[in-house]
């Protein structure tokens, strides 16, 4: 970012043109598999009586954000060096390596609303590859416009919307014994605290419609709290009356009508339960003779992956949502846990312990094989899928304290999402 600003400053001083800045200098890693994208500076227009857009804020809040989003999309690589002038013909961009050339225009209306017009030119065919107009109310931050554009460009290329406008919900320690649920944009900006219980608050899960659920120790013993209605207040879900012993790990079913959760008894067993929010009735799926925890739904809500020590050490198992058809998923290793079923249902991410450290693995159900994602001297935990299934968010202590990271499925592009300390249990959700 600093380099970007310096470049911007340098170019603005060095040229008479308003928008001659270019950013950064290296091509993204493994760009060969990606579409190389050139981008000219946004053209800024304003209605006769409108206050003009601030160039510096457009540069930091729009251009830089857009480039970061596209670079992290996994399908685009930003062209970063030997850039032709903005006014150069498509041919020049093609020779510089750009397969697409993106041009944007931001227009501010007299009322303050924004219009973003984006077009991408296929430099080889010299024809339009993408064209879209976005209208935004003046209160929408520029960076969200950039996220929206990036997501639409990814959709144009892959058929599925990108995840630049997605968010991460996670738990962060505020002081010893006090943890709360937070939300942050996928690019690490826009941190928002979602709970204020002043106690241990753990295991968040977000329904497709945005409703939050979690466990809080605010009343002493753990309780499941969440939103019954969209944007509604947080209320106690379970135990419905009295004390329910140990409860952990509530997870919304894909249709948002049921909660899988975990209840421990006084014998030391923990079981996977399903709470029907409509009737308020809870049903036990496992048989109460060992530890069963960490439920994760498959995308159509018919199966649950979970961790169990029924064969001695923790391993990942799968079962139907009525407890039948139980089978062990993980083979090797003495400690496999924290399963996370992928959004399309074909993969299960989990963690496995090796030499005292945990690493991320992905089990491909079709192949019946597990692939190791992270390797290293640090521990990686709590994998959760991006909505587009291209990346995993996880926590790692590779820089000391437990922080949020994302990785692609090759494990080669590990990116620190933000520098917040004391993070755990990230979930990756679509922006709304």
């Amino acid at each position, binding site marked *: 970012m600093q380099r970007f600003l310096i470049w911007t400053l340098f170019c603005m001083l060095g040229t008479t043109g308003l928008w001659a800045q270019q950013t950064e200098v290296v091509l993204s890693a493994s760009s060969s598999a990606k579409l190389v994208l050139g981008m000219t500076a946004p053209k800024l227009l304003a209605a006769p009586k409108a206050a003009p857009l601030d160039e510096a804020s457009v540069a930091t809040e729009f251009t830089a954000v857009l480039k970061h989003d596209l670079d992290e999309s996994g399908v685009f690589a930003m062209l970063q060096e030997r850039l032709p002038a903005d006014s150069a013909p498509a041919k020049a961009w093609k020779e510089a390596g750009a397969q697409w050339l993106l041009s944007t225009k931001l227009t501010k209306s007299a009322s303050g609303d924004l219009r973003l017009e984006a077009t991408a030119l296929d430099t080889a065919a010299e024809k339009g590859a993408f064209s879209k107009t976005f209208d935004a109310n003046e209160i929408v931050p520029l960076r969200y416009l950039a996220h929206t554009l990036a997501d639409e460009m990814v959709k144009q290329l892959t058929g599925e919307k990108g995840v630049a406008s997605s968010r991460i919900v996670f738990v962060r320690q505020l002081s010893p014994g006090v943890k709360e649920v937070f939300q942050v944009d996928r690019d690490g900006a826009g941190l928002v605290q979602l709970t204020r219980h002043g106690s241990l608050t753990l295991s968040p899960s977000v329904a497709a419609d945005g409703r939050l659920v979690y466990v809080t120790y605010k009343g002493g013993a753990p309780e499941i709290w969440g939103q019954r209605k969209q944007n509604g207040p947080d209320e106690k879900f379970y135990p419905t009356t009295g004390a329910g012993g140990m409860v952990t790990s509530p997870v919304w079913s894909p249709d948002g009508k049921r909660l899988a959760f975990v209840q421990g008894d006084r014998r*030391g067993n923990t079981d996977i339960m399903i709470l029907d929010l409509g009737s308020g009735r809870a049903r036990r799926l496992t048989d109460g003779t060992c530890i069963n*925890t960490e439920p994760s739904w498959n995308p159509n809500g018919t199966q649950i992956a979970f961790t169990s020590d029924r064969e001695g050490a923790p391993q990942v198992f799968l079962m139907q949502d009525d407890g039948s058809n139980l089978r062990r998923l993980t083979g090797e290793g003495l400690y496999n846990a924290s399963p996370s079923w992928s959004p399309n249902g074909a993969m299960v991410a989990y963690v496995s312990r090796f030499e005292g450290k945990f690493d991320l693995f992905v089990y491909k159900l079709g192949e019946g094989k597990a692939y190791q994602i992270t390797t290293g001297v640090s521990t990686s935990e709590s994998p959760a899928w991006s909505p587009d299934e291209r990346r995993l968010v996880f926590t790692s202590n590779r820089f000391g304290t437990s922080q949020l990271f994302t990785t692609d499925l090759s494990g080669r592009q590990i990116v620190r999402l933000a520098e917040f300390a004391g993070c755990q249990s990230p979930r990756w959700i679509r922006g709304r």
Partner: protein
Amino acid sequence: MRYGNYLVPAAIVLTLGSLACTPPKTAEQIKAETQAAFNEGSQAFKDGKALASNPYLNDKENPHKAKGWTDGWNAAAADKAAADKAAADKVAADKAAADKAALDAKLAAEEAARKAAEAEKAAAFRKAAAAALVTVHFDYDKAEIKEKDRTILQGVADFMKAFPAAKVEIEGHCDERGTNEYNLALGNKRAAAAMAYLKTLGVDEARFTTISYGKEKPLCTEAKEACWSQNRRGEFKLK
């Protein structure tokens, strides 16, 4: 007729003389006389004379004196009665106050003794609790009670038996290695294992609650075994 000449002047002299000798008393005089008689009566009472000794009883000319004297006597008698009563009341009140003070002192002494006994008992309870409710530890990913922790649990059981009203929460904790959720389950298993062991020592399990904090409340946050072994623990807390 010889004396006729003197009759008229004589009559005049007699009439005037009688008028001069017995002038009618004014209201002032009567008031003064009444007051004098009142004072005499009052004094007479103080001197111990009877009401019947009123010297004006036969003075038909001055009934106000008799009345004044009687009133004086009665007033003195009433004053004395009131004074006597006040004195008696004061004695009674003083006695009652003294009695109450004595009772209060007795009660306060009893209360203080009771409080002291309670404080002593509470102190003994706290001391016994502090001595008995010692943290036990577990091996990695295990919930079995260690051989060396059995004496600790025996101490917890003895404490529970010595103080039958005591209630204890057993907290299960884990080290940082392992997932948050699995460690919450493991902490529950550890708390349950400690409770089950205490049950075998004869303590009613209804006197225990269990709670798991998993790896969420470590005592020590360094990534080394010396720290982890402190965190894998079962704590006993008075409820």
